[in-house]
Structure formats: structure tokens, C-alpha cells
């Protein structure tokens, strides 16, 4: 790949916190993210997919330091975020923006849209007071909103309008990276398509990178250049998007693809029905995390944690296809 350092690089990141427990006084430690590494290059969209409770939100929050990671490092533009001084951190906070799942919850309920959009400009000292209104109106225009929403409160807007306001708030800060945590799942189908198109437009026109988190494979496929699949706190497979959807290597990825309602038309292939439930993240299985539900499970899977194998089937210049599974060892 290119010689420039990646915009964001995450190396062996661990996130854990004390979970609440009703039954015992000792609070168990929940290891939400366990040894995750990936790189995100400028102008690219990195899709992160997994089921609920797999740790994808914990990972995203650790990157913006909403929860401090317990181990590992996060580098932004080659610099370790932990070692950043006040100015560097403030700059990073502006350049990395977070887009939440539920825009109604993420917008301050007692502040109107004008106040909401002004806040990042004032905080990051962007523009002078005179041209701030212009900047805000430009951001609104980018997300197809009229300036008359400025006097409204979040609850007065529709779901799609709210998510566009949230996107506008992200854009006024002139970010280099947007971390979007399930930004579509609280929206209706017809609105989803619109937000999706908008995000693609913003991404192309402004060259903004996205870390796009979703449980919906079809949505990830719409946007992502590269995709990582997460299960119980680990990245089990990482590959360029086209490669991953055409040749999934990990049994979990395959099962996930098979479980999705692929054809969306009657008489299509029946969805795969899974055996068992996802184990609790409090007590992840030893060895390979997926072995309790894997159709191809072998003896060593339950004891030995598989290492990362790089598959040699990607074209030159593309990110490599990595998978954590014993099957690919031989």
C-alpha cells in the first residue's frame, strides 16, 4: 500500500471494564475488545461488522477515548494518542468525529439546531463569528437541509432530518475521520437509503475517511472499501470488501453471510439457522472464540487460539486478506 502512514492505526487494543453483577459482590471483568489491530488509510471506508455484544461499539469508543483502552495503542496520523499534549489532543478531537446510532439521543434535547451546530465551531475556534453562519448553512446544504431547521429542537424533526443534523454537526468540524456507529439502524428503509447516499457523497467529495460500524452486511457492502468481521471481542477476518463478500474465509463470516436474507424475494435460498447462542462475553470460550458454534470445529479449536493467517488471494496494491482460523493453517 502507500508509503504514507495510515490515518488511523490500532495495534493490539484491549478494552475491559467492570461489569455489573447482581449475584456476586465481586464485579466480574468484561473483556469487550481483545487484541484488535487494523489500519485505516486516508479517504477510505473501513467497515466493521458484527452482532450486538461483539465489542464493536467498545472498540469505537476506545478509539475516541470515551472509554480508556486497557492495553494497546491507537495512533492517529502516526502519533500515539496517549502521548498527545493538550493541543494535539484537541486537534485530534476535531479531526476524529463520532456519529451516533440514535440521533435523537445524541443531540442535546434542550438546545436548538443552531446552538448544536455552533458549538463545535466555537469550541475548535473555526472561522470568525461573521462567517460561522455561512459555514453552518453550507453544512446544512451538504446534507440537504433548509436553514429553517436552525430554530427547531431535535424532537421537532423527523428521524431522517435528525440524522442529517447529526451529520452536519460532524461536518462543520472539518474532520478527517468519522466514526459512524450504526448510523442507519434507527432509521426507516427509505430514509436509510438517503443517508447512505449522503454519506457516500460526503465521503467522495470531501475525502473523509469512515470507520463504519454496522450489523447489517448489506449496508456495509454499500459503503466499505475494506471490511473486518468481529466476534466476541476479536477480529476474526479482515479483507478488501469485494474479496470478503465473494470469498469469505472464516466459518463465522460465511455463516453470517448465509444468515442474511440474501435474496429479499420469495423462494430464495433459505436462511441458515444457527445452532446455539452467542456465548456471554463475560466468559468467552477458550481457544477459538467461535468453536462452540462452528460447523467445522476440530479438536485443537477448543484449546488453541488460532493465529492470524494472511491469505495470498488479493490483488497487488490491495490490503491483505487476514483470517483467524485453524483451517487456514495447513
Amino acid at each position, binding site marked *: 500500500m502507500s508509503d504514507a502512514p495510515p490515518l488511523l492505526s490500532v495495534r493490539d487494543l484491549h478494552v475491559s471494564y467492570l461489569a455489573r453483577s447482581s449475584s456476586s459482590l465481586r464485579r466480574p471483568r468484561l473483556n469487550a475488545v481483545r487484541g484488535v489491530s487494523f489500519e485505516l488509510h486516508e479517504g477510505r471506508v473501513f467497515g466493521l461488522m458484527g452482532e450486538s455484544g461483539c465489542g464493536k461499539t467498545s472498540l469505537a469508543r476506545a478509539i475516541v477515548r470515551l472509554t480508556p483502552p486497557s492495553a494497546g495503542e491507537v495512533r492517529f496520523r502516526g502519533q500515539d494518542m496517549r502521548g498527545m499534549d493538550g493541543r494535539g489532543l484537541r486537534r485530534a478531537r476535531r479531526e476524529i468525529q463520532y456519529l451516533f446510532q440514535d440521533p435523537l439521543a445524541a443531540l442535546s434535547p434542550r438546545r436548538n439546531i443552531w446552538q448544536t451546530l455552533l458549538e463545535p465551531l466555537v469550541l475548535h475556534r473555526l472561522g470568525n463569528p461573521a462567517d460561522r453562519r455561512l459555514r453552518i448553512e453550507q453544512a446544512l446544504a451538504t446534507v440537504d437541509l433548509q436553514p429553517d431547521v436552525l430554530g427547531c429542537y431535535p424532537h421537532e424533526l423527523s428521524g431522517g432530518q435528525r440524522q442529517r443534523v447529526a451529520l452536519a454537526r460532524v461536518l462543520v468540524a472539518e474532520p478527517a475521520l468519522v466514526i459512524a456507529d450504526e448510523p442507519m439502524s434507527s432509521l426507516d428503509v427509505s430514509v436509510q437509503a438517503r443517508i447512505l447516499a449522503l454519506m457516500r457523497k460526503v465521503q467522495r467529495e470531501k475525502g473523509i475517511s469512515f470507520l463504519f460500524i454496522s450489523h447489517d452486511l448489506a449496508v456495509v457492502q454499500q459503503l466499505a472499501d475494506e471490511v473486518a468481521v468481529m466476534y466476541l471481542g476479536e477480529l476474526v477476518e479482515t479483507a478488501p470488501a469485494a474479496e470478503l463478500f465473494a470469498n469469505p474465509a472464516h466459518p463465522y463470516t460465511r455463516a453470517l453471510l448465509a444468515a442474511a*436474507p440474501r435474496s*429479499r424475494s420469495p423462494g430464495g435460498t433459505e436462511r441458515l439457522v444457527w445452532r446455539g447462542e452467542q456465548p456471554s462475553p463475560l466468559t468467552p470460550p477458550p481457544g477459538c472464540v467461535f468453536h462452540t458454534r462452528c460447523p467445522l470445529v476440530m479438536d485443537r479449536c477448543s484449546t488453541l487460539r488460532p493465529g492470524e493467517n494472511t491469505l495470498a488471494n488479493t490483488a497487488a496494491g490491495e490490503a491483505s486478506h487476514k483470517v483467524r482460523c485453524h483451517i487456514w493453517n495447513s
Partner: protein
Amino acid sequence: MKPEHAIQAMKYEARNAVLSVSELSVTFPSGKNRVAVVDQVSLELAAGEILGLVGESACGKSMTGAALMGLVPAPPGHVTAGKMELSGQDLTALDETGWRQIRGGVMSMIFQEPLTALDPVFSVGSQLWEVIRRHQRNGRSAAKGIAGQLLRDVGFSDVERILRSYPHELSGGMRQRVMIAMAMSCRPSVLIADEPATALDVTTQAQVLRLIRRMALDAKSAVLLITHDLGVVAEFCDRVMVMYCGHIVEEGPVEVLFSRPRHPYTAGLLAALPRLAEGPPIPVRTIPGSVPSPAQRLVGCRFNTRCDRAGQRCQVQQPKLQSHPGAGATVDGHDEGHRFACHYPLGQNTVEADSP
């Protein structure tokens, strides 16, 4: 005529509606006026069939389900219906006591979030026994036996542990299975499932939906599956009704509606859905504009503000939901029961060209 089509046609002729409703409306006050959240909806449910009611949020689909269960908060809500009959019994005349005997017995409901529908302070077992004893007048030990059998039916192996556990100790999928067991405990004639799999992961979604289908078939229950997910409809429903702004805009057998949608809104929804592809991503199309609020009092077709086919007529005259025999119906009888409310339906010509 191919045999399966013959069966299909017979099925429609011999339709024996368990639940039949006509001109159901639900209104809520808005300022000085009343706004119809559900507007003149008619539907028939036959034993053993799964009818999908699909639409976007606030289109009135959940309110329809609530009205069928007598659960619309009144006041402020107000329900009117030309006819509402459950196996010959008139539901419009029921008072709260009457409804309570119907609910959970002959007619039951599954909610989107089982954690809020289950009582957190009682064990799963005691909640199950309560339902069984209330409606079947069984003794305590008999109820316990039935509860255990029900949990086995919904796929639990360690029944004893589940009976003793509390709702928060179970995973989302397990809770929804308990809800299904509870809803099916009295072998209801009608089951209303409001977004039963939406809160679940893809991997458990299919499991839960299949369970509903199997249990409903066993008990010969009619199912109304309320959902926003067209994928779910395609996979699990026999018939589907598409709802927009309180109106049913299109209705028909699933295969027909998905392959030959006639209403532009149905077609738009289908095109807006991201589909998983093995090759490069299939582009999605958006429906312009946004859903008008019920308070906007649109005249004519409710979809005319967002429809690219809308003409003058659409702004004045509200199209009726009706079947259009000949106008694009295929000869094989599949389009039996395909009805839509549109002045300028899609495929007026193309479909005719398709037919031999």
C-alpha cells in the same frame, strides 16, 4: 394450470376467515381536529396463514395491531370499525372485561421488546402458569406440566432452569422464545406479532421467525406479522399488505407483490433496500421527500408528494384499494387477491407484454 397453482386458487376460494375486519379507523386528537392514524383498513385472516403488514415507522401498522387487540389507549384514541369479527364473534361490542377474556386466549400478541412485555419481578415459570391457569382453568400441577411442554416446544432443553429464571437472566432470543410460548399457550386462533424479530441479531432472527411459523401451523393459528423488514416478509409470509400513512396501498400474495409491485411506493421500498450481493454492491435507490405527518391532511393519494408518477388526478381523488382484473393480471391465477390503490400503477403495459 399447474397443480400448485390450482391449490393456490382453491385456497383462496375456500378461504375461511378467522378474523375479518372492515373499515377499521383509529383517530387521535391533534389540536382541534382528529387525525386518522389508521384509515379505513380492511383485512381478512384465514386459519394457518401468515399475513405480513409492512410499512415504515408511524405508518399506522402497529396501531392497527393494537386496535385488533383492543389495546388502543382510549381516550385519547378512538377506534371505529364497520365490522370486526373473530370467528363470528363481534369484537366492536366488547367492553374491557370482554377483551381481557379474548386477549392471551383466543387472540394473543408478541411484542418487539420482550424485556418490557415480561414482568421483571416474576420468574418465567410463574408468568407462564398464570396465563395458562387464567384461560384454561387448569389446576396448578397441570399448568406446570403444560408450561414445561410449551418451553420444550419452543426449543429449550433445560426447561427446569428456564422456568425458575427471571427475564433479565435470559438473552434476547431466549426471552422472545418465552414470549412465543406464552402467546401460543392457549393455541390462539389469531396471533399478532409486532416486529417480533427486530430487536434481535440476524443470526437469531431466522430462528425466532421460524418458530413462530411452526407453532402457528401446529395450532392452526392465523398470524398477522407486523414488520418494517421486507426481507422478513419475503421469507415468512403468505400474503402481504403494504401500509403508508394509515392506508393500505397494496395487498396481495407475497410472490406476486415482490415480483410485480404495482404501487410506486411498494416498488420504491423494494428498490431502497440494500441487498447483499456476491459481486459488486447493487446500488440502492431512494424515495424522494419524507413521510408526511398525519396532521398534514393530504387530499387525494397520500403518496402524491413523493411519487414521480403522480398526475393531477392524484392530488384530488383518493385511489381506492381494488383488484384490477385483466389490467396486468397473469392468467395463472396468481394475481387473485392482488389489490392496489393507485391511479397510475406500474407495469400497466409491460406485464401484459409478459403474459403469453
